């Protein structure tokens, strides 16, 4: 791989990661009936009022979006959007 194509791939991946992060923020905001602007990626989602079962459903949403298999309890183990994104990076 040339340096240039490598750089393009890295840029494309980071764009898709940003897109995924935005999608996730919106998804969470929808489940919480909250304005997405008010959601910090470093805040634990449970503090916004996300309950256990909704957390499982959001991991289902992510599975569908990325077409990957995830443990149902992914959001239980990765409590912030930042943590979830770190976990998902390798899978994207």
């Amino acid at each position, binding site marked *: 791989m040339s340096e240039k194509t490598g750089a393009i791939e890295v840029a494309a991946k980071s764009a898709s990661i940003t897109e995924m992060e935005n999608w996730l923020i919106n998804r969470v905001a929808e*489940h919480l009936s909250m304005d997405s602007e008010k959601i910090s990626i470093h805040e634990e989602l*449970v503090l916004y009022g996300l309950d*256990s*079962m*909704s*957390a*499982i459903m959001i991991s*289902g949403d992510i599975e569908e979006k990325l077409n990957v298999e995830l443990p149902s309890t992914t959001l*239980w183990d990765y*409590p912030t959007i930042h943590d979830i994104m770190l976990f998902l990076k390798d899978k994207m």
Partner: protein
Amino acid sequence: MSVDIIKIQRPTIFDRLVAVEELEEFLKSPFDESSVVSFKKSAELDENEIFPYQEIEELHKWRYNEYYIPKQLGGKLKSFEELLFLTRSISRRDLSISITDAHTLLGALPVWIAGSEEQKQELAKEIRNSRSACLAVTERSHGSDLNANGVCAVKTDDNTNYLLTGEKWPINKATLSDILCVLAKTNDKKDSRSLSILMVDKEKLSPDTYAYQPKINTLGIKGCDISGIVFNKAVLSKNMLVGKEGAGLEITLKGFQITRTLCAGLSLGAVDTALRTTLNFVLKRQLYGKTVFDIQHSRHTLAKIFIDIISCDCLAIASSRGLHEITSQFSVWSAIVKNYIPQKVEQSIHELSVILGSRFYFRDDHDHGVFQKMMRDNSIISLFDGSTIINKHSLSLQLKFLAKKRAKSTGIELEKTLENIFSLNKEVSDIDYNKLDLFSKGNNIVLQGIEFALSKLGNLKGKNSVSPKTLSEILNLTIDLISNLMDLENKVDKLPVVESGHNLETEYFDLAQSYCKLHTAATSVFMWVYNQEELGEYFSKGEWLVLSLQRTLDSFTIYKKELDKEYLENTAKHLLTLHTEGKLFSITPFQLSN
């Protein structure tokens, strides 16, 4: 024309599950006052609110307690199908006994699911020695809101022990059990990883670190020990942690998937007796120069109730087998069973009470007043282990996924698994508890495979065992089932995303209820197509299935709602035969002691 023969030899299920009739023989007829568990003695215990010690001791002489221990640990629990029927057998005698004793399984499941090898061996040994277990989840102030629980387990500074503090209430056997699996907070976050399960052996606790709350006076199961327990810095070795710290909620919910499925056995046992004692009455009671059974309205009502029982029976049997074959789908299946069966049975018992007239209200007349006892005892089943509402709620959350995934499925690839679940000639595979999952990822094989049922039905054309009229009715109703399912999926698609915080739109609950009906109807169809020639003439003719589909799908648009009188009469005749021969009211009518 193809020649088809209805099997006249005994269906293999009776030999596969030989323990069911053996237990019946051991327990003898509950109508007989000298039996191990008799309606007369149960009524006395209930009236005096006395715990059924002697009955449980007798049951354990038969080694019933070993059915709570997996066979891999030297126990007798090899299939939940078998345990379902055994539970029915005890429940039809006295729900106080089955609810109390079976709670040991609920208490043990966290260990079977997530415990260490050492914990498993230890607990298996204790249960084999007739020590009993219970699961303590609920707290007075928090009920269904488990993440709000206050009982906490704090690690000691040297990291070797936990100190357990707080109250669990109301708990079945809080006072009388020897071992408890307690759901306790192990951190202060109130999130889904804040709770852990700890196994508490009371023998190992210092007596000054726990106390009991008094027995609660209850409407039913009056002899049972429904009480509370308060811990005050009770010292538990860290080896008593079951699974990982923070896995408590996950383990508890997985255990519920099994017990919610088995609750069907409690309900079906209760309704078996409620129907049997009502039949005793209607066949004896003379009015207007004939018996009450001779009155068409009574007879047809009994036939309809029997049909509803059979629909629940199909769902219960399929689910007890499904636990082994499609374990990962049980967040959906167990919610359907726990939502549908106890509710339907409550309704059936109520309808039976109308036929029994004043006898339903008397506490000692007619079969020792067993009807009113069953009615009262039965009403707890829809509440514990997650109430009807809680199950509807958890099913609601998955509806969008279920609808989307089904649209992508053809059904054909599911054939082998469907056969393993529904073909009652087959032994089920060993269950792998690791496959239990809190989310079915949109999968529900029964409704994903429903189109496949149509082709199986098509293959039955030309068989002697089923009339063309009945077969075409079944086909039409199955087509109606599918179109109503598609309609429901469209409605689900239009609903807003589920909002967090347990404040789901009411419409979700209604659609979940409808989904349960469609699922139940589909299990009846599969049960028939996979066993059509195996379970005797009445089953084979399929008239029951027409009635069952009509009744289960009554709230939907179906092509024909009016029930065929001839089918009802044939059903009443079959019911009478089962009653006279003392057989279980089931598609697999085990011989009872009567």
